């Protein structure tokens, strides 16, 4: 059995797959990778199924030892990874020999880097998923972020190493984007035309207190018209809710499942992965699209991801 030994954990390294759906009636949000596209690509680079569990690292990566070796790939943001003393690139699988160490540092681009190993990270599934739900301490590795001394198991794999890379146009698609596209939220009527104008014209800064539950934004406050009382209702992934103070919050993967604040907008499905790459102090703005446009963008993105030319095979490597 192959393992990963955690020498230093990094800022917040968690086991994530593509999340657990279908437990809304229990109050359980899906959780899962904050940048699901990077996780999917990372898994494909090592020949895993797209929803295999990998490690999600936030802003600062850790130091990991592979006593039995592994085939792995990094995806998402560049954390300046080094294998023993060799620099390794994001988006290229490599074979780690037994006893080698990977060191990841602070990010040089977005918020999250994914480490995918062939065979996936093996943890006991909770409600059908390996994803860590940090707030409730459920799922993943003991329901928490990794700590020094943790030993993770790697799932069984064929050790079939193929040299693969991600097509440049896919990487271009994944490059950071500071404009989030949104559709109108269910309570958009609660906001005046002038509030909406300032919301869409304004620049918002991602607050320091942001996490997998939500991103707090700093910027122009959005005023509601009149004082209305919301009845608590289900909230969507990417909902932009506006509490009484008027500064918006984007609800994210580990979100509360229901809430009582009006939602002015909602980040579209095709841009959710970009939210996962936003760092504190990043500046963003919102662009309104229709649901039909949002769907076209999603279809386009999925077509790109499904394209056979996305992952370039370079044949077996000796």
């Amino acid at each position: 059995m192959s393992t990963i030994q955690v020498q230093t954990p990094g800022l917040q390294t968690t086991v994530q797959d593509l999340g657990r759906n279908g437990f809304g009636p229990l109050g359980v949000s899906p959780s899962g990778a904050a940048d699901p596209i990077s996780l999917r690509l990372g898994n494909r680079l090592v020949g895993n199924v797209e929803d295999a569990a990998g490690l999600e690292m936030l802003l600062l990566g850790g130091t990991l030892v592979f006593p039995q070796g592994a085939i792995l790939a990094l995806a998402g943001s560049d954390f300046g990874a080094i294998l023993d003393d060799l620099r390794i690139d994001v988006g290229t699988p490599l074979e780690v020999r037994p006893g080698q160490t990977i060191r990841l540092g602070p990010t040089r681009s977005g918020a999250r880097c994914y480490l995918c190993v062939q065979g996936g990270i093996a943890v006991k599934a909770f409600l059908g998923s390996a994803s860590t739900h940090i707030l409730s301490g459920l799922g993943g590795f003991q329901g928490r972020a990794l700590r020094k001394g943790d030993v993770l198991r790697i799932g069984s794999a064929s050790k079939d190493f193929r040299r693969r890379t991600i097509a440049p146009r896919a990487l271009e698609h994944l490059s950071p984007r500071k404009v989030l596209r949104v559709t109108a939220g269910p309570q958009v009527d609660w906001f005046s035309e002038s509030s909406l104008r300032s919301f869409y014209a304004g620049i918002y800064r991602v607050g320091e207190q942001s996490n997998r539950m939500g991103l707090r934004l700093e910027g122009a406050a959005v005023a509601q018209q009149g004082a209305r009382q919301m009845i608590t209702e289900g909230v969507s992934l990417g909902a932009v809710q506006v509490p009484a103070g008027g500064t918006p919050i984007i609800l994210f993967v580990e979100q509360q499942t229901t809430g009582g604040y009006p939602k002015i907008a909602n980040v579209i499905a095709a841009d959710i992965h970009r939210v996962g790459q936003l760092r504190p102090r990043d500046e963003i703005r919102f662009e309104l699209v229709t649901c039909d446009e949002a769907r076209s963008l999603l279809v386009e993105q999925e077509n790109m991801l499904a394209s056979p030319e996305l992952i370039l095979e370079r044949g077996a490597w000796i």
Partner: protein
Amino acid sequence: MLCKQGGRRFDAGHVHPLSSWLTLGRSPLGESHVLYNSRSMQTRTTDAAQFQRASDQSLLVYLGQRITLEAHERVRKLLRLLERKPIAGVRNLNPAYCSILVSFDALKLNHRDLEEILRGYLDRLDATPIPKGRELQIPTCYGGEFGPDLHEVAALHGITPAQVIELHASVSYIVYFLGFVPGFAYLGELPEALATPRLDSPRRSTPPGSVGIAGKQTGVYPFATPGGWRLIGRTPIAMFRPGRKVVSLLSIGDRARFTPISAARFAAMEHA
């Protein structure tokens, strides 16, 4: 115009979903259109629900406009139908007081088709039986370190802490739904004499098992989360436990009653 949504957004202008009752109809062209009407025009037909796009991959189905038993039962009925006969492409359901948020895979389903399918479900709502929920006891140690806000709640209402406990434990509460965090049950209604506003500034963390009240609701925090409800006691039993056959102690539609226990009993149960 800033607030567009495929040209199909509710053209209700200043009329909000929750402040009026809207019925969706079908035009001869097959496009749904909105007949927004006053409450006096409201009919209790089975298809009287209102759809609202929440995002490009979710739809809110409103089954009432106020927190009532009737709306709650309609939510339970629709939830039961959707759980018994899942719609292909639907990923998740989030029931609440008078609505269900239906999240779907936008590559497999769109709002128009989902609304059409849901109309079929809504037609069967009245004929759908709902099972009687279980009645569960939540042993609770009130006051002291477990209920730091008990005295303040009593003072706010001009009654004694013992009366707060008596009132709180006198009701068989309905589990309206589970939401917020795993296993958090929204229980109601609190006796009018206990209706209390939230704390002005929420606690950064509430100990798991804390029993809180807010407005006319009460509930138990399953995990250490931030929280603005006033804490009057704590239960030693786990509201949500992964190892258990049924992970959540309470389910939508159950009833729950708080039974006062001593600190000694709390300690004994906690270590049981």
